[in-house]
């Protein structure tokens, strides 16, 4: 079939992995009660630092680590403002987006002495992993094999995060903090530590998202290359109700719709309308959500101050 061939799905999987990673990071923050609209900035920071790491070390592994580190540093700055200084998290998140856009553009000039884009043909991108057995299977092989490691890590992160939340003690406590911070504090849970933990983890995930973008998808950094992916991640996070599996689902939905909208470009509809498709489908999907995310609290807690 012309519209939905195999490359449609492989492309969708590649395209959503940065979104998925960032959305999972955002979910961690949401789960400790911090709404993080700074995902866009965090991804961008990751993408930039990954390229810097790659350029100076020549090692992709180091590059990815530097990418994560760069994003973590920015994330900590966000945490400092939002947790320690009790700044409004939304304002702080928007500030992070502005700040990183400025810093990376400035960094392009200061470090690489270029404007707009840094590109070096000697720079190695992330390798494509061919998965031994699966590779051989006709359709599945092409679909699932041959992606960059971070693509697999993105989906793995979804599963790991699920296990973390619902199987481990620390994850359980993280959930508790988000559900009722006052109660968690009264139990003596280290709320602030957990919040910072989530912030750091979110930084790592967004850093990986950035690295996937600048070293996995392409091998370059361009100014503002996130192109709104952080906000899509935010939507995926909310649509998935901060549940790891829900987020994988909503990211996939969005990715497929985005890919579909590209396929529809060839047809006679104006591209503006095909481009609306993923957003409209997402809105429609919200009509079918059963639990619309509002955690009900015990009546007793409502009356507590």
């Amino acid at each position: 079939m012309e519209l939905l061939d195999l490359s449609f799905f492989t492309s969708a999987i590649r395209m959503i992995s940065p979104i998925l990673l960032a959305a999972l990071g955002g979910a961690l923050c949401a789960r400790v009660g911090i709404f993080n609209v700074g995902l866009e900035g965090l991804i961008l920071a990751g993408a930039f630092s990954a390229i810097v790491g790659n350029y100076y070390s020549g090692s992709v592994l180091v590059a990815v680590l530097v990418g994560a580190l760069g994003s973590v540093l920015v994330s900590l700055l966000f945490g400092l403002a939002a947790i320690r200084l009790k700044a409004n998290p939304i304002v702080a998140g928007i500030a992070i987006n502005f700040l990183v856009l400025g810093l990376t553009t400035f960094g392009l000039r200061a470090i690489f002495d270029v404007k707009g884009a840094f590109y070096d043909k000697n720079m190695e991108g992330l390798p494509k992993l061919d998965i031994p057995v699966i590779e051989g299977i006709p359709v599945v092989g092409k679909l699932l094999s041959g992606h960059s490691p971070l693509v697999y890590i993105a989906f793995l992160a979804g599963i790991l995060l699920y296990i973390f939340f619902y199987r481990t003690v620390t994850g359980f406590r993280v959930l508790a903090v988000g559900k009722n911070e006052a109660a968690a504090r009264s139990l003596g849970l280290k709320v602030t530590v957990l919040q910072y933990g989530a912030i750091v983890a979110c930084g790592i995930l967004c850093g990986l998202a950035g690295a996937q973008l600048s070293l996995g998808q392409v091998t370059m950094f361009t100014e503002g290359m996130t192109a709104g992916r952080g906000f899509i991640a935010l939507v995926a996070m909310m649509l998935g109700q901060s549940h790891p599996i829900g987020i994988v689902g909503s990211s996939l939905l969005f990715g497929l719709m985005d890919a579909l909208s590209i396929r529809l470009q060839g047809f006679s509809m104006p591209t503006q309308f095909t481009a609306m498709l993923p957003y409209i489908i997402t809105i429609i999907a919200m009509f079918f959500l059963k639990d619309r995310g509002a955690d009900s609290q015990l009546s007793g807690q409502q009356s507590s101050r």
Partner: protein
Amino acid sequence: GAEESAGKNESSTKEGKKKIALVLPEKIGVNPFFQQMDDGAKQAAEEFGVELKTIESTDHSAIEENLRVAVAEGYDLIITSSFEAEDALKKVAAENPDRQFAIIDTVVDLPNVQSVNFREHEAAYLLGAAAGLSTKTDKVGMVVAMDIPLMKKWTVPFEQGLKETNPDAEFLVNYVGSFSDPAKAKELALLQASKGADIVAGASAVGDLGVFEAAKEQGFFTLGQDVDRTEVDPEHIVLSQLKGTDAAAYETVKAFANGDFKTGIVEYGLKEKGVGLTYVTHESKTPLNSFVGQEAIDQVKALHEEIVSGKKEIKNPLSN
């Protein structure tokens, strides 16, 4: 207006040097030709001893602001560029009839404005023709930044050239939806290649880097824009459509420095060598890729001759 209140250093001739402001409608970085323009203007300024200040605008409404302040600050010539600055320049130039302006890449019909007009549709036609002659699969793609009228200057004549030289060829177009998203541009290029295109042209600003990377990875061929991109990766980037924005800026500054600046329209088409195509109108440092082959180039050269001689006219898709 602005002069009285904002003017701080009206005395432009203090050091005897002429002062020129280059007000760019965007920040340098996304569209390469602004960088080129800046380079060209700077080079001329250095060579001919004028003072040049480049002012980048953060957004649409900053253009007018910057133009006004440039007037107020007493620049002798104010150069700006592109369609985005058209409205602003019309207002500011009309309000300041005693000041001289230039606009590169579009036409503003005022007595104190020099307009530099590029007929890039002519070059785009040649590029399409070359693609039509080179394709082996009869499928040629183009990854375009956005579905906006401006981009028709690339897509429409390209398709015309393609179809005229190769009536069987299929033309695939996809839009990135952004000028700065190489990752998506790359996916689109891969998509077009998977549909069988052996040539995917880039017309997506920064996104072109993604298209080039896709070509390198999948081994198809691609075409560049504005400057000679074949140097980046001669094996896959086989042709480049050229646009002499640097030359235009250079010439404008030079003319002004030498005192022979004229208002009115200056045309930069194939005839004037203001636009062009590698191997056809301009030499390239890299040897011609055999995928295109000299034979195709020769045929395109013939078309070029027809256009230059006026025998063939390529319609500007934006004019009606």
